[in-house]
């Protein structure tokens, strides 16, 4: 199986600082890690390779230092890393990101399955996976918690839904996004780390991908972040007094006043 795992390097903290001038993330001085949800995608790619053979390639888009994320993936056992890096890619929203990834995957050529984490820890949108599938014109299943089997050009997966899971069969090639319930990511191995140290990372720029620069980076991003703020929590509470039937009457009255019922 030819598997492609898309990963993102994110700040290794939940207290992300925002640049007030550009409303983008401040990355300086924060240790970068592989987006935790993507580590499950990497692990699943490796497990599928161990079960059904083949090759796992991982792609990331980011500044030159995002190479570290690819080396970490190689230390886990991933075969090859591709870095999409160009000033033109900077400031991309999910639409521009999925476009760059789409062109990179087209350039790679063949694949059976693309695996993404369900969302990133910094952006939290969960859109890149589905957008990428849409651009590639392949089917996709989100929130996969188990890969049951692969045969005859189909994959059978369990997909998390609110009150349980559903079993979905999808023709390949296709794309899945995975949740943390799917596996426990492995630690790197010494052999993997040594391989990662000297591994050659393929770097593709905007011109390597032959992309229309108005479709990538900030220029290609219809999303404009006007302001980022934590909404104030305004929660009022009131304790109803009296016996049960009078409490019920008061509650119904209040719900009517609030036009909830």
């Amino acid at each position: 199986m030819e598997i492609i795992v898309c990963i993102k390097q994110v700040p290794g903290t939940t207290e992300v600082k925002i640049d007030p001038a550009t409303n983008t993330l401040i990355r300086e001085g924060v240790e970068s890690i592989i987006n935790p949800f993507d580590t499950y995608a990497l692990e699943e790619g490796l497990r599928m390779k161990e079960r059904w053979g083949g090759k796992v390639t991982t792609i990331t888009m980011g500044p030159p230092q995002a190479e570290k994320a690819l080396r970490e993936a190689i230390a886990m056992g991933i075969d090859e890393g591709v870095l999409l890096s160009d000033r033109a890619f900077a400031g991309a929203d999910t639409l521009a990101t999925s476009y760059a990834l789409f062109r990179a995957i087209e350039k790679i050529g063949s694949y059976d399955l693309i695996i993404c984490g369900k969302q990133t820890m910094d952006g939290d949108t969960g859109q890149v996976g589905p957008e990428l599938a849409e651009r590639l014109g392949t089917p996709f299943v989100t929130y996969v918690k188990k890969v049951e089997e692969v045969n005859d050009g189909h994959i059978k997966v369990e997909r998390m839904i609110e009150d349980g899971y559903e079993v979905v069969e999808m023709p390949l090639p296709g794309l899945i996004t995975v949740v943390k319930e799917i596996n426990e990511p492995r630690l790197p191995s010494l052999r993997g780390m040594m391989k990662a140290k000297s591994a050659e990372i393929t770097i593709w720029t905007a011109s390597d991908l032959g992309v229309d620069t108005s479709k990538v980076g900030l220029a290609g991003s219809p999303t404009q972040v006007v302001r980022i703020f934590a909404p104030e929590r305004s929660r009022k509470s009131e304790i109803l007094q009296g016996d049960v039937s009078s409490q019920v009457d008061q509650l119904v009255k209040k719900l009517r006043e609030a036009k909830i019922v």
Partner: protein
Amino acid sequence: MEYFLTDEQKMIKDLVGKITEEKIIPTRAELDEEEKFPWEIMKVLADSDLFGLYIPEEYGGFGMGCLENCLVMEELSRGCCGVSVTFAATALGTYPILLHGTEEQKKKYLPDIARGKRLAAFGLTEANAGSDAAGIQTTAVKDGDHYVLNGTKQWITNGGEAEVYTIIALTDKSKGSRGASAFIVEKDTPGFSFGKKEKKMGIRCSATRELVFEDCRIPKENLIGKEGIGFIVAMRTLDITRPGISAQAVGLAQGALEATLEYSRQRKQFGQTISSFQAIQHMLADMVTQIEAARALVYAAAKTIDSGAKNISKVSAMSKLFASDMAMKVTTDAVQIFGGYGYMREYPVEKMMRDAKIIQIYEGTNQIQRNVIALQLIKESMAR
């Protein structure tokens, strides 16, 4: 302090540090309480290729040396010495094959050990042969194409869990220590069984058992080296692996310091954190200084051994003597700083103090280490 480690050495330290943080520290109290053998952690170490560290590349390892082994031992021991001694005992059982084994023996055993598929163990100690190792009574009598082993080994780390055992037994009783030989005995060989699992004060997740040999027949090809060099094999092995135990003491003390620092910066008495009291600060200062001194000595001993130096008994012994006495003191002080909480099993330092004691005892008691150091010191001065 800067020890000028290579990129590879730093990588090893980082990798094992991660394993310790993620897999060992969260489970160590349970492993200790239940005296549960750390198979799951051994599997992680195997998957991370760490069992192959000191095994040559042609047998599936990395061909690294004593210093790298010390780095692994130090990081593992920061989490749990029961786990690290389990790792170390495999090295102890493997080095005799590495140092004196035939090509066939190496090909047969080393690749599986390197992959962590089989653990190893080393059997020297007996009920009446501890510090006086030459007092062993287990015998190996040649009978055609076989040797027949009889006797009982005591307190063998990884006993019952390991699959490959290096056993020191007498092939010629009349020659005393020159009549000893080293053998490889595989688990499940008829006539080879295990005694009860010992209940210990510390390193409680590690397995310590008797090895019982009753007319146990092993093929003559399992002799390591030749007859009569059993003690040379044992002593060379111990000299090389001992700094790993010294590093165990350094890591243990480091773990105790880290826990104590965190606690002393949170614990408030008299309206302030206890780390603001000079009495505590001076203890912390002594702890970190002693740890660093021991680390420097251990790394220097390991580098001396890796350089191929011939007389390594003294440096090897010095590192173990100093580091283990240091760990005993540091962990005792850690419990003192934690006060009543430190005496409770809810906090990690009482375990560390229990674990520290064994390091002053095993791999040669610290009294024997002093004998070794003094003997070589005097020899050196006579040679001048």
